[in-house]
């Protein structure tokens, strides 16, 4: 029941925000904040309740389950379940949601109610994706989060918002159709062997599939997740969408939506199709490495700050792909860490760029220089997150990447070496970002106020998060460990 | 007298039908197009009558009656529309009716 609440809270909160937005502009903000706060506390409480050894180390994989018949004709049920892995993701979702509301407090001044409605519904969709354990339901939420996101970009975005929103939608939706086909095909394959039509993940695990069928279905899943992740060459929607979205949109996109792709890879692609996935692993890992390098080089090439940050996402999430298909404990823990840490580091960079844009109305790196003198706090924050992004030890991203690479090393040394070269590239673009914008002479004669308390608070949370993850990530690792070992054991069967 | 085989009669019907269709395609006058449709319908009616006689059943003839009736109704409406159209366009040339081709090069 609590699981249902976790989805219902943002849904209802969003609706309420929309309704009350007609009366007062601040109402939606406070309502969203309150709703997300409640959700966060609820999720955190669930976490703490089950954090003890008894909860997570339990034989039963799920800490909590909620199931209700939905469309029995197709064997579909409204089936949610919680384990350590998606618990982490849900907590993260609410936290990022709160930060997103915080960072858009001043930025969004038109149609505030509708904005928050969409924001909350995206979050509800994301939570749903993480919790759904019925594949149809998963697909339902997967698609559900697109429309409000489309509105977020299309209404409150920047100059080329329409094109970007369309591109985002069509890429994800088109790949989503392949996912749908694969899901349906899998369910029917399962039916033909077991006689039961079911979309229940736990039942579909271990469905015997012919080599070709398994590969096709795996590709259906993979492509959908690869678009979201995004994997080069399916990534081109991402820079556009990121660049044009309002700050909160970029934050949610980078911090949460991309993670649904990563989550899908871990949860579904490999466990459901172990043979096909292993056969495909070399290609996938190569794609991951290409993503790491390509994203980094393109990040270096950008002059638009938001585009730059967007490409860093491409680069960072290449590690996720690499790690998932390396498929061992080190790599998977690294992937989980990367999912969380990237949310903070890239989310924060988007918040910073957004704050900068609010003040200067430009994101053009060639017009910004010497801003340290104007806004040292901002500079320090940018420096911090740039360092996080280049994988400075002591911050979460470092551990994530190191774990992924250490896990990938026994699988493929050349790919690992190339991916490690990506760290150099990451250094290049991160350092360039800070140096260009904040160092040098203030040629544009910019004058503006430094970070406000609200912005500093939003960023501060992320700073603390990254340091904590960098120095003592054990709670996160412990939370994910039972799920991961279960998934690993699926593979061995 | 041997009855004419059904296949041959059907051939006649088919030829009639084809004639109607060709008429429909080559004539630009609306009235003639309506007539062509009548021919096609009547060809179908003929086929029904032929088949009915082959099976020694009344079904074919019943069907033919229905066809004639509907054809009449269709023509009635068709002619009414032609009259309406006449007031807008001083021609019966169907190729002149292209106000509805829509967007791009309109």
């Amino acid at each position, binding site marked *: 029941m609590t699981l249902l609440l976790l989805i219902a809270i943002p849904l209802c909160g969003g609706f309420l925000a929309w309704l009350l937005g007609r009366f007062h502009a601040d109402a939606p903000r406070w309502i969203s904040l309150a709703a997300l706060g409640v959700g966060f506390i609820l999720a955190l409480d669930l976490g703490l309740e089950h954090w003890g050894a008894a909860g997570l180390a339990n034989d039963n994989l799920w800490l909590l389950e909620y199931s209700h018949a939905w469309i029995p004709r197709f064997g579909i049920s409204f089936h949610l379940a919680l384990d350590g892995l998606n618990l982490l993701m849900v907590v993260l979702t609410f936290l990022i949601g709160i930060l997103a509301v915080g960072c858009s407090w001043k930025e969004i001044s038109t149609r505030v109610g509708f904005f928050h409605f969409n924001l909350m519904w995206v979050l509800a969709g994301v939570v749903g994706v993480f919790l759904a354990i019925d594949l149809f339901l998963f697909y339902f939420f997967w698609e559900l989060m697109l429309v409000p996101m489309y509105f977020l970009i299309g209404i409150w975005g920047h100059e080329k918002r329409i094109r970007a929103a369309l591109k985002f939608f069509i890429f994800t939706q088109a790949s989503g159709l392949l996912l749908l086909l694969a899901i349906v095909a899998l369910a029917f394959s399962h039916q033909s062997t077991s006689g039961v039509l079911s979309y229940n993940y736990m039942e579909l695990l271990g469905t015997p599939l012919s080599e070709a069928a398994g590969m096709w279905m795996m590709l259906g899943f993979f492509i959908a997740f690869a678009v979201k992740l995004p994997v*080069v*060459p399916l*990534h*081109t929607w991402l820079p556009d969408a990121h660049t044009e979205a309002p700050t909160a949109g970029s934050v949610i996109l980078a911090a949460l939506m991309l993670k649904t792709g990563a989550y899908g890879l871990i949860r579904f692609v490999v466990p459901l199709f172990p043979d096909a996935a292993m056969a495909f692993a070399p290609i996938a890992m190569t794609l991951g490495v290409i993503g790491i390098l*390509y994203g980094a*080089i*393109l990040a*270096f*090439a*950008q002059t638009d700050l938001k585009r730059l940050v967007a490409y860093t996402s491409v680069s960072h999430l290449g590690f996720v792909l690499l790690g998932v298909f390396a498929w061992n*404990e*080190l790599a998977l823990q690294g992937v989980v860490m990367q999912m969380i840490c990237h949310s903070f580091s890239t989310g924060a960079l988007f918040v910073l760029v957004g704050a900068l844009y609010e003040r200067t109305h430009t994101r053009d790196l060639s017009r910004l220089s*010497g801003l*340290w*003198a104007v806004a040292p706090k901002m500079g*320090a924050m940018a*420096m911090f997150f740039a360092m996080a992004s280049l994988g*400075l*030890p*002591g911050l979460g991203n*470092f*551990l994530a990447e*190191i*774990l992924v*690479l*250490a896990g990938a*090393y*026994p699988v493929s040394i050349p790919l690992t*070496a190339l991916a*490690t*070269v990506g*760290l*150099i590239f990451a*250094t*290049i673009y991160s*350092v*360039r970002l800070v*140096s260009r914008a904040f*160092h*040098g*002479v203030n040629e544009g004669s910019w004058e503006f106020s430094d970070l406000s308390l609200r912005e500093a608070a939003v960023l501060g949370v992320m700073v603390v998060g990254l340091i904590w993850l960098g*120095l*003592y*990530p*054990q709670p996160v*690792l412990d939370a994910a460990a039972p799920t991961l070992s279960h998934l690993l054991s699926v593979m061995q069967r | 007298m041997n009855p004419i085989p059904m296949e041959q009669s059907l051939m006649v019907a088919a030829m009639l039908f084809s004639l109607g*269709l060709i008429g*429909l*395609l080559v004539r*630009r006058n609306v009235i003639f*197009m309506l007539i062509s449709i009548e021919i096609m319908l009547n060809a179908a009616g003929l086929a029904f009558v032929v088949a009915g006689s082959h099976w020694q059943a009344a079904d074919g003839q019943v069907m033919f009656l229905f066809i004639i009736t509907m054809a009449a109704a269709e023509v009635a409406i068709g002619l009414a529309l032609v009259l309406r159209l006449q007031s807008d366009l001083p021609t019966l040339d*169907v*190729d002149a*009716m*292209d*106000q*509805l*081709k*829509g967007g*791009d090069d309109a």
Partner: protein
Amino acid sequence: MLNYLALLPTLPLVGFLILTAFGKSLSKRSVVAIGVGSMALAAMLTIGIAIHFLSAPPPGHVFEQHLWTWFQVGDLAPGFSLYLDALSLAMILVITLVGFLIHLYSAEFMRDDDAYARFFAYMNLFVSLMLILVLADNLLLLYLGWEGVGMCSFLLIGFWYKKPENSKAAQKAFIVTRVGDTAMAIGLFLLITQLGTLDIQELGVRASEKWPVGSGMAVAAAALLLGGAVGKSAQLPLQTWLPDAMAGPSPVSALIHAATMVTAGVYLIARTHALFALAPVVLTAVMLIGLLTQLTAGISAVHQRDIKRILAYSTISQLGYMFFALGVSSNGAAINHLMTHACFKATWFLAAGAVIIAVNHEHDIFKMGGLGKKLPVLFWTMFFAGCGPFFSKDGILAEVWFSDTGGPFLWLLGLFGVFVTSIYLFRLLFTVFLGPLKNDVHWKPGLAITIPLVILATGSVVGAIVEYPRLLGYHPYATGTEAAHASPYLHAAIGKIAVGVALAGIYVAYRLFVRHKHYEAGEVVVPHITLRMRRLFAAGWYFDRAYHAAFVVPFQATSRFLRSELIDRGYDAVVALVQTGHRQIRRSQTGRLRWYAAGIAVGAVFCLGAVLL
């Protein structure tokens, strides 16, 4: 006392945190109190620890302090654990003592800077991370410190961020060292995969159990770690960042780019010597890298005009000596040189910084002269400090002569380096301080500058007499040198030769730069080498230019080429295709009735054809 070990990195870290959080609102006096005070406490604590360690050695002469487990995934569980032995004791002594003195110096040197608090914050952070680096008991924690000091180096080189070239230099330093670090990271993955641990002591044990001497894995592991060391310690081929790094304030150059951070590579090799011992090939490589670096950098140093660049090349060259020593497994000699050099080079950099201020931010030594009378303290501290390292270098040369892998030929090459060293050092000293006065000097160093200089110079001189590491109980020397100790005369004779060569160098420098004043004609040392050669030496053997052509240009070209996102053109093509499809098929909607009727007829023909054919 040893139990307070964890406090050591914490003290400067706290300083950093306070200065970062409240830096803006603190007065300069309180900034000094926090920034320098934390260092003073750390230095005192270090001395206390050292005394305790020497007077009441812990069992096995090793003290370990486990703080918390960093993370645990499977069997891999690196901890935040500190490891103190003679080697790390030597290092923390250098870091905190030299560090404290440099902080003290900075309190006066940086007084007029607006970003006083930021400077001390960075410096404190650096010291803290450097301490973590040398105290780490596992390679991952070491790597944390390793990368952390790299970042601080980046921050401090670019400290005066308003000048774009400073920022460029900072980026270069960071990126070039990251290249080495990448190799090191891959080395870590190899060790994790092969040996399942990153604990340094455990690594040594497992490696020697698992890998025979000279096995491929051992060579790979050692070579990859060497990559990191080469980058950090500015050895060939990753030395190019250090001369540019002089863009930072002089105390930064003194602390980071002379005394401590750049020696991290030396420390790493000494620390993981167990691995290197399994890979003699790599050790030879270390030796050759050291030798080559030492010679090339020394020759370049002779051809520099910028006072700080001379010192930078000198640092590279001296680090080369340390690698030279490491290459013959004479870690003791390397560390000895490291410590002496730290005192010596810190003195010189600090003094150079003072000189630069005194002559109104002039860097060209040929635009200075006769400052000895105006700034005698600087001259004499530099002079005495300059003598120290010759003796520690003699130690290295003797080790090379006697070691199994070295020998007289390598010794001879090393000896040539000594000669070059004395030329460039005294070229600088003579040009700046002797001869006619060329500059107005309005500024005299105060106590906060003089005292550190004097202490450091003393440290260097003392280093010429006593071997610091031996004092601390760290004396692993090259194999084969026992024989040398058996024949002390030869050993002493070899030392004397080196001193003689050094004196010869000084004499040459004196002849060229005081007597004949060749510098007035054009900064030449050896008058007869061609201009092209001179340019080659002055530009650091064109490494920069080569790297620019080999890496920077292709990278930029690739990024420019890809900037327009070629992949997107593919999707554009799909869009265009669909649109073309739309336009083509749209043409079928002609609005003409007969055309539509024909469509139906065609459809009918198709249907009939499909069933009949």
